[in-house]
């Protein structure tokens, strides 16, 4: 599958594992539940953790070092909690790995997402990924500081 990562379209290296059956090969993205129930098997693997909108990253703060990647799910693009989570992961917890938006991810949300610290996007199925990648150019001005910009606009004016 193709995803957008670091503002380029790339072939995805990660496999979503839903916890059913044996662990597949490769680098796995798992839910918090799978991470907890199958901890032994996941030892020594490259693991990405997927958070749901009601799973605040502060609940996994002490475990963040285990993860190469945090995926944040948007079951619907209208649920904006994931924006705060990404920002907290970056600015408060200093998470430097990939933060990936999954689920109902469309072009029109990606500019905001990258500002909050997302670096990868699984663009919603059926959407033109080549169109979506243009979203990062929608705006050249950023009024606020955020995960991507720590100098306020008035010091850049």
């Amino acid at each position: 599958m193709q995803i957008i990562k670091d503002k380029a379209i790339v072939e995805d290296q990660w496999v979503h594992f839903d916890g059913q059956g044996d662990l597949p090969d490769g680098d796995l993205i798992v839910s918090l539940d799978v991470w907890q129930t199958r901890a032994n098997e996941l030892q020594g693997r490259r693991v990405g953790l997927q958070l749901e909108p009601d799973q605040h990253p502060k609940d996994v703060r002490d475990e963040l070092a285990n993860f190469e990647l945090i995926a944040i799910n948007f079951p619907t693009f209208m649920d904006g909690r994931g924006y705060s989570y990404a920002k907290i992961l970056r600015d408060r917890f200093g998470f430097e790995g990939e933060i990936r938006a999954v689920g109902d991810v469309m072009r029109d949300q990606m500019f905001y997402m990258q500002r909050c610290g997302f670096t990868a996007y699984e663009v919603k199925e059926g959407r033109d990924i080549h169109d979506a990648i243009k979203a990062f150019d929608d705006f050249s001005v950023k009024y606020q500081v955020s995960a991507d910009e720590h100098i306020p606009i008035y010091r850049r004016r």
Partner: protein
Amino acid sequence: MYKYDENDRRIVLERAAQFKSQVERRLTGALKEEEFRPLRLQNGLYLQLHAYMLRVAVPYGLMSSTQMRMLSHIASKYDRGYGHMTTRQNIQFNWPKLDDVPSILDDLASVEMHAIQTSGNCIRNISADQFAGVIADEVVDPRPYAEIMRQWSTFHPEFAYLPRKFKFAFTGATTDRAAVQFHDIGFHALKNDAGEVGFKIYVGGGMGRTPMIGKVVSEFVPEKDLLLYTEAIMRVYNQFGRRDNKYKARIKILVHEMKLEEFTRRVEDEFTALLEEGGLPLDQAEIDRVAAYFVDPAYEDLPEKSASLDQNLADNRDFSFWYRQNVLTHKKTGYAIVNLSLKKPGVPPGDLTDVQMLAIADLADKYSFGEIRSTHEQNLVLADVRKDDLFDLWGALNASGFADPNIGTLQDMICCPGLDFCTLANARSIPIADKITSRFDDMDYLYDLGELKLKMSGCINACGHHHVGHIGILGVNKKGTELYQITLGGSAGDDASVGKIMGPGFDEDGIVPALEKILATYIDLREDGEEFLATYRRVGMTPFKETLYANH
């Protein structure tokens, strides 16, 4: 008035371009309506009963004459020749075509205007005291802070998909004219004992189906912490605001369910964490830079008294009524604040035509440094008029239809569009407003009634602020009939209160007689010089109910 720099200009142009591409994708079917909907809403574009409706932002109610001329152009070119001022100090156009909206946005951008965040589940356009900067009872001019907040909230990446719409209002005077206690966040700028500027911050006020008065989350947030503290509030709301039920999604419900103490604790924790992770306070240099746009215009040194004004007041009774009712004392001697009434029988409250917009722009240039303000009571203001000019201005306002001497009277009612335009409405409201203003058109009677805030909404969403009317009217639909329910005792001022429902509603023919009875009861019961609200608060609902429902 704030002037865009290169950054501000670019952002509205890029927004217009972005929306154009979104409209194109919608028209080709690449975007489904349910996907397009939140995008167009964040751009102030509703789909209404008959057509699209575009809501244009008027940040804290301030406009230039140039901008007003552009609004006139838009009204005549893309609409049916009029616009509608709203209780959020914005202007709405009721008939644009979807294909035209990108061109409208380009036109707006050319005069530093836009429709950004006038709708949708984001931080909405910010409102403020319409007399900011010119009124004598002001402690802190809130406009620079409202502008700083406008920039901060514009395309805020973290808060574009909130559980629900979110409204800010600012005041900096001793009298609150911005209804800050009825906003999701109300900012009351003030000075502490050391003379430092800060904000008393209210959260969780609002109207709609569950009206609530805002609660104080902090008595004093220093100006340097304004943005960080707001960020903390927004983040707590973004995380805990309910998303399972849109009627319970507003911050007022969160604060109510979580309790103010717990909510405040979480905000304070978040604020502390933001500081610890290196959150930057607002630079004084930036406050000063923005404040420099709001320094006084080039006032002349004028005497307190204007001989020509006094002469005209003595000679012309109509002029003197208008002066007493629609003109306010300015902080600067020799100047006055002029309210332009957009209320009169036969015209929906808040409506103005393209021709009238041009006339106002010209008058603003001639008499008030080219600036116009909109009010949450759906009127306009020329804020800096020389007393010597008042008589001439009055003549011109008479000619264009804005000199009705009814500000603050029953005729000055607030009214939403109701069933004539709004998909959500249960009842018509504009024709009812017309019945009322036509019936109560005897100015002597209205003056005798004194200050009376009458507010009407076509449904429970309360766009017409009926909850905070001294007398409120709410349109409901009972088994296919439009009924009008009356509330008494609301106030959006310092003494904020939510009106109480009197009893069963009245039909279209019954509502005016009902008002007549309520007013007669007030006149019977009032003590010397007592205003309606004071009488109601003294005597309570019972005597009003007794006369109103006596024959039922």
